C-alpha cells in the first residue's frame, strides 16, 4: 500500500523531511499529490523507493539520488536528475533545461520535449553508464561537454512541430559518450569536430535494449520507433581540444 502525501502548500523542506522520515520507517512506495514547484524532491536518497508524483515538481528533482524510481505524471522543471548516481526518472510530459546535468548513473526517460543543455557534462565509469531518452525534441547544447553515457533523441512526441529535432551546438565540447538520433541533423548544428556516423550491429542491440524499456514505460510501439533510421554522434578522440589553448 503506497503512502499518500498531499503536497499542497507544503514547503520543499517539510516535504523532503516527511519523505525521509517515512523512508526511515520502512515505507517504500509513495504517491505525492498536488506537487507544485517544490525543489529537490528525493534529492540524495539512496534507498530503492518508488515515487509517483502528480503535479509539477520543482528544480533539481532527484538530484544526487542513487536508487529511487520517480514517475512524474506531468512536466518537470529545470535540473531534473542533476548529478544523479543511480535510479530512474520517468517523465510523462516534458522536461525543462539541464536535465541530467553531470549525471553519472541511472536513467531518465522523458516522453516529450526537453529544454536547453540536456545531458551537459554527463559522465561514465566502468559499469556506471547513465542514459537519457527523449521522446520529443531538444533545445541547443544537447550533450554539451559530454564525457560519457548515452543520450537517445527520438523527436517523435513533440509539442513543437515548427522546431528542428535538435538545436544548435549539439555535443559542443563532447569528449566521450554517444548521442543517438532518430532522423537527421544538419552538420552546422553539430559542435566543432563532430560528425554523424552509421550505427553498428552493437549500436542496434544497445538501442533495442534501451528503447524496449522506454516503450514499456510509456506503452509505445518499438516497431514504430525503428521505422526511421538512427545516426550516432561521437567524438573522434577523447581529447578533441587537447591542442587548443582556448576554444
Amino acid at each position, binding site marked *: 500500500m503506497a503512502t499518500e502525501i498531499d503536497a499542497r502548500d507544503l514547503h520543499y523542506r517539510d516535504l523532503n523531511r516527511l519523505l525521509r522520515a517515512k523512508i526511515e520507517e520502512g515505507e517504500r512506495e509513495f504517491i505525492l499529490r498536488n506537487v507544485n*514547484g517544490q525543489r529537490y524532491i528525493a534529492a540524495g536518497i539512496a534507498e530503492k523507493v518508488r515515487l509517483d508524483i502528480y503535479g*509539477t515538481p520543482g528544480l533539481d528533482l532527484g538530484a544526487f539520488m542513487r536508487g529511487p524510481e520517480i514517475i512524474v505524471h506531468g512536466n518537470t*522543471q529545470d535540473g531534473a536528475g542533476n548529478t544523479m548516481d543511480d535510479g530512474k526518472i520517468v517523465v510523462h510530459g*516534458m522536461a525543462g533545461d539541464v536535465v541530467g546535468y553531470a549525471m553519472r548513473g541511472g536513467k531518465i526517460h522523458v516522453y516529450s520535449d526537453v*529544454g536547453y543543455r540536456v545531458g551537459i557534462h554527463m559522465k561514465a565509469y566502468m559499469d556506471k553508464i547513465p542514459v537519457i531518452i527523449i521522446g520529443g525534441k531538444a533545445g*541547443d547544447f544537447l550533450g554539451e561537454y559530454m564525457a560519457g553515457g548515452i543520450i537517445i533523441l527520438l523527436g517523435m512526441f513533440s*509539442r513543437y512541430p515548427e*522546431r528542428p529535432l535538435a538545436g544548435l551546438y549539439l555535443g559542443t565540447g563532447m569528449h566521450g559518450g554517444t548521442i543517438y538520433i532518430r532522423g537527421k541533423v544538419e552538420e552546422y548544428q553539430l559542435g566543432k569536430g563532430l560528425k554523424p556516423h552509421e550505427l553498428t550491429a552493437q549500436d542496434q542491440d544497445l538501442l533495442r535494449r534501451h528503447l524496449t524499456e522506454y516503450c514499456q514505460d510509456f506503452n509505445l510501439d518499438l516497431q514504430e520507433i525503428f521505422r526511421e533510421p538512427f545516426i550516432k554522434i561521437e567524438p573522434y578522440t577523447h581529447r578533441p581540444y587537447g591542442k587548443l589553448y582556448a576554444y
Partner: protein
Amino acid sequence: MNHLRGLSKDISGCGLSGVIHRKGELIPGEIIIRSICCQEERGNGLGAGFAAYGIYPDLADYYALHVMADHRKALEDVEELLAHRTYIAHEEPIPTRPTPGIENPPLFKRFFVKPKYEGEVRDLCAGTEDEDDYMVRLVMEINTRIEGAYVISSGKNMGAFKGVGFPAQIAEFFRIEEYRAYIWTAHNRFPTNTPGWWGGAHPFTILDWSIVHNGEISSYGTNRRYLEMFGYHCTLLTDTEVVAYLLDLLIRRHRLPIEIACMALAPPFWEEIDRMPPEERELATAVRVVYGGAMLNGPFAILFAYNGGLVGLNDRVKLRPLVAAEKGDMVYMASEEAAIRAICPDPDRVWAPKAGEPVIVELEPGAIPNQRSYLRGPGERTGAAVCRYPG
C-alpha cells in the same frame, strides 16, 4: 556582498511572473502575488516589485508619477519642480501599511500630471507628439538633479511598486491586493552584482514601459553609453535600467516594430544570419550593424510590458528560464511552470520559448482606450522566430 557572490552564481536566479488578459479585463492583485510567491526561493529578500496596467482609470489621461524619496526635503523639491513644470490634477501618498520586516522604507507619493509648456517650447514643438519626450526629460531631471528622489514609474494608467523585501512583504506593504490590472508583472530579486536597495528593485520603468529581469546584462557599460547619446541617464545602479530606456528609444522613438526591437536586443548569431534567405539576411544584418549598442549581452530572461501588451524574451543561448502558458484570453509567463500553475492549474497549452524568440502578447484591438500596438504587419518575416498574439 562578497560572501554572497560565489553562492549566488550557483544556486540563485531572480523570479519573474507576468499575466495579461487579452480582452483588457481586470485581474485582482492577489493572483500575481500568489504566482510570484510560489517562486520564493528565487529571491533572497533584497528586492521585489510589481507593475500594474489599468489601475488608474479615472485619471487615465494623466501621467502617473510614482515618486520615491529618501527624505522629506527630496519630496518637497520634487513637488516644487512639478508645480513649475506640470499641471497636477491630483496628488496623494501611495497607500502603504506597516509590514513586519520592512524597516525605514522611503517615502512614496504619486502625482497625476500633464506637461506644462512655456511659450516658445510649445511653438517649437507644435504639431509633434512631444508630451512623452517632455516627460522622459522631466523624469531624467528629477532622477539626476534631485538628491534622494527617484521616479519609479511615469506612465499613464499604470504604476510600479517596488522595494527591499520578499514579494509577500512588498505586496503587503503596497497593498497590492487592492489593485486590479489587465497586465501584471512581478519580480523576486536575488541581487548578485549590484546593491539591494529600494531603487534597484524591479520593475524598472520609463513612461508606460516596465521591465522585470532575471540575469545579468554584462553589456551594461556599452548600453549605458549608447543611451546617454539620446538623453537617457542611468541613476539606479542596476543593469536592468538600460533595458527600460532601450525599449523607449527603439520602439517609441525610432518606431521599430516590436519584433525588430527584440531582434536588436537579442540578435541572431552571425552564422545564423549567414544561413537566412537574402531579404531576411539583409534585415538582420542591418539591425545588428545599426543597433550594436543596444544588443544585450549576458544571461537574461525579461518580461516587459506597455499599455497594449506583455512580452517575454530570453538571451540567445537561454541561460535563464522562461515558461509560457495560455488559457482562454489569459497568457502567462514565468521563470517556473509552477508559478503559472499556482494561478492556472489547468492551462490549455504550456511551452518553453526558444532562446532569443520573443513571446509578444498584445491586447485584442480596441480592448482599452489609447491602446498602443507595436506589432509588425502580418506576414512580414524577420528571419528570427517570433511567437505573437494576435498571430
